[in-house]
């Protein structure tokens, strides 16, 4: 039985499972619940990094105002550590700087055929392909993907890439898109989770070209289905 126009999941129809799952047998299948838990763990971890440094800064200033430089260094740590995690997330969809390969124009046409009109235009402007699915709205880049969860209040970033290093960038996106469409939960299981947090944290560290795609994904994630 299909739900909301999305294909059957691999749990409902095991033959649809992504074959790449065989390479990561120790991982539990990603699901809405597992992603929610993972998101909460990321929030807790971030708080565990930030709160002690802020507390240290406050205590130092209360005990000895002359320790202001140390307190400032502590506050800097509280700011830098979450930012570094956000950079890690943004790097998953950062375009790779290199000469455009010969096959890119053909690959771009092929990728365009896989996308609807609006998604095709967005991909050409931003380099990211928007895909609505069960777990949320995905932005697929050439070496990673971002999932905006329903409601648009959290993102999950994944590192994942096609095994063939010679592929043109658009073919790399097409590879990920087809795998995602085949088995979304399997795709989120095979991919390495790199970051979870609020969309604004990711946006600040994204390549400026890709930011409109994140805005579009958030809009799609908040729109009623």
């Amino acid at each position: 039985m299909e739900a909301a126009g999305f294909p059957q999941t691999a749990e409902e129809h095991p033959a649809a499972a992504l074959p790449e799952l065989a390479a990561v047998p120790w991982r539990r299948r990603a699901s809405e619940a597992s992603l929610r838990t993972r998101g909460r763990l990321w929030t807790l971890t971030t708080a565990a990094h930030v709160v002690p440094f802020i507390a240290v800064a406050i205590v130092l200033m209360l005990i000895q105002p002359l320790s202001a430089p140390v307190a400032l260094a502590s506050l800097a740590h509280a700011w830098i550590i979450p930012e570094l995690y956000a950079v890690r997330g943004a790097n998953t969809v950062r375009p790779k700087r290199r000469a455009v390969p010969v096959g890119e124009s053909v690959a771009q046409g092929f990728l365009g055929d896989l996308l609807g009109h609006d998604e095709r235009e967005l991909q050409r402007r931003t380099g990211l392909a928007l895909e609505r699915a069960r777990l949320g709205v995905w932005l697929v880049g050439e070496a990673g993907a971002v999932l905006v969860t329903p409601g648009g209040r959290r993102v999950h970033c994944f590192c994942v890439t096609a095994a063939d290093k010679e592929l043109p960038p658009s073919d790399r996106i097409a590879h990920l898109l087809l795998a995602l469409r085949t088995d979304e939960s399997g795709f989120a299981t095979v991919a390495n989770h790199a970051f979870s947090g609020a969309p604004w944290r990711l946006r600040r560290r994204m390549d400026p070209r890709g930011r409109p795609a994140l805005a579009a994904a958030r809009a799609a994630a908040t729109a009623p289905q």
Partner: protein
Amino acid sequence: MSRLIRMDNTGHSTLAEWTAGDEAAYTAAVETFRRQLDDGYIGVVSDGPGHATQVRELPVDAATVILRRPIAGG
């Protein structure tokens, strides 16, 4: 006309074409498809926006069958 295409460093290559009534062309396409699977490619049929199905046998009636490489966490 159905097509078997492979995503590769040229963008994509058409490896075989067949029609439902052309048994010889379909048999040749099946041979090519199986060789590509043996080389590690994965067969996928795109069923329209948001839908794709992995195939292990070449469907005679699919408009396009795409061969892709496996993906892995980066």
